[in-house]
């Protein structure tokens, strides 16, 4: 059953990711991205990470995608402003780059799989792994400092983006 769901979710992810980069109209790309996040959330559920799956839907599929759509609509690009279709050479280069990146993911994982190294079976995980209370505990005890430092990182990003978008310094 798990395998079946995983295969279905992977196919959805793959096709929608392909649609994100191949659609010329950015609205279609953004909508395909929602579908992609949905498929990814299903995979997280299979990995016993319900909280991450929920966050994936709420934060990425919800908040960030709405922001993307707002920006695209505010820009309101007309057909002729979208520019011409990129040439065959560009597409070939993009395909080669994407293939190289895919190899970077596939090769180490397959090597680990054949050497039976890493990625322990799900059965060996402790009870409650990936649940909200476990995650919350880890976040506020063992990973308290990284959690707080993330807010400093966001502060730097906010200050920087406000500075870059102000009319006058």
């Amino acid at each position, binding site marked *: 059953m798990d395998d079946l769901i995983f295969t279905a979710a992977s196919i959805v992810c793959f096709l929608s990711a392909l649609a994100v980069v191949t659609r010329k109209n950015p609205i279609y790309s953004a909508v395909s991205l929602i579908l992609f996040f949905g498929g990814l959330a299903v995979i997280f559920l299979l990995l016993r990470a319900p909280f991450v799956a929920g966050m994936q839907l709420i934060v990425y599929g919800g908040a960030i995608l709405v922001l993307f759509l707002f920006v695209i609509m505010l820009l309101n690009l007309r057909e002729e402003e979208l520019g011409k279709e990129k040439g065959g050479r560009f597409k070939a280069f993009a395909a080669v780059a994407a293939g190289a990146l895919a190899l*970077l*993911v596939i*090769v*180490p*994982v397959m*090597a*680990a799989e054949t*050497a039976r*190294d*890493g*990625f*322990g079976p799900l059965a060996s995980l402790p009870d409650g792994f990936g649940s909200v209370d476990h995650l919350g505990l880890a976040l506020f*005890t*063992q*990973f*308290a*400092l*990284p959690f707080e*430092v*993330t807010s*400093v*990182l966001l*502060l*730097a*990003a906010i*200050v*920087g*983006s*406000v*500075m*870059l978008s102000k009319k006058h*310094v």
Partner: protein
Amino acid sequence: MPDIGSAELRVLLPVLAPLLGALAVLLTDPYLDKGRPKLPLVYIALGSLMAAWAALGFLWGDRVVAWSGALAADRFGLYLGFAIATAAGLTVLSSAGYARKMGVDCGEYYSLLLLATAGMLLLAMANDLLMVFLGIETMSIAVYCLAGITRERPRSVEAAMKYFLLGAFATGFLLYGIALIYGATGEVRLERIAHHAANRPLLLAGLGFLLVGFGFKVGAVPFHMWAPDAYEGAPAAVTGFMAAGVKAAGFAAFLRVLLTAFGGEAAAAAWAPALWMLAALSMIVGTLSALAQTNLKRMLAWSSVAHTGYALVGVVGGGGVAGNGSAAVLFYVLTYSVMTLGPFLVIALLSRAGEEFEQIDDLAGLARRRPVAAAALSLFLLSLAGIPPTAGFMGKLFVFRAAIDSGWLGLGVIGILATLVSVYYYLRPIVLMYMREPRAEFNASEPTDWASHFAIGVAALALLLLGVLPSDAIAASLESVRGLW
């Protein structure tokens, strides 16, 4: 449950100081008169950096690990922490006049500078891979924005954009490497990763991606493509901070990860040949490219690529716990951060309102009009070239000797040859300054920028001191590396 006790807070002190300074700057800025020099911001920034310095000095001593092992205040991190805090302080001093000339005398400038410093200090003390990542990102995001802060100059915006895009790409590699290492070991803490056998494909793949990510942050060939454009386009004071601080913090984390998590013989045998290539390529490509430059900032960018190579020589020739290589890297990065910051301080001083002073030919005859600036710039360039009695000479000597002692003769020879070639492009500006008639008009009419002069003086004095009396700093670097275990 970690007890938020005194150790936790003590370890955080050097980071909290610039962080609180950044917040204070942001809160003070709206209450200052527009159009007048924003000196209070400079005072706050300087004060918080001095507090960071004091905190680093206060922590200097035994290794304290806190926050469930996320942060380690040991001499290793603090050693380069001093270099980072000093570079930030000198940058602030030079910015007091420079930011006004460039029209960016605003709260955001100083607060981003301080936030970047906080990120760098975190990075220097980071003891697990999560903190390494967060430190790098906090530092990088602030520096990307600083590089593009002079928004009217297209080149500055281009620099920020290129640096940001390539930086984000490299961060992806770094994060992927961390994910693979976590997948292989189930650990993010450096000393626990070391307990796992290193010859496993997943772990080695993770290490490879880490090398790419770090290689980008420290600007090693072939991951250096961003450096010339980013250094040339960013405003001079920011470029100096980038060249000194980002590199010092990057090397601190890089070296700590390699020595702590991958310090075993099997792991070292995996990364040493890869770093050998990076070091040799950085020295050769950096030196040869610098020869052809007509823009001073671009020349210094290529020179910083070459210097990354010299420092990597020490990493390769580390010689393990007993060897001097790793300590040589610490000393080298310390001296490098001072001597690479220096020329940018001079460029910032000589720049006019809205216009960077960056063409090498414009230096002609500088010695007649601005003798102090010319003398200081000559000293910095001589030190970068590695000519005694400056600190650059001691640094190179220490690094090359450590590499040759531990059997990396080829790398030492490449380093010495690259140094010889580099003398040409470091001496050319000096010849121009002292032996040509002045061509450009230097801004002699403006009121003297004492803060900038003071910063240049401190940097020059530090270089001479480290060159003539290096024994204390070298002894401290040796202690720092021993203190890692």
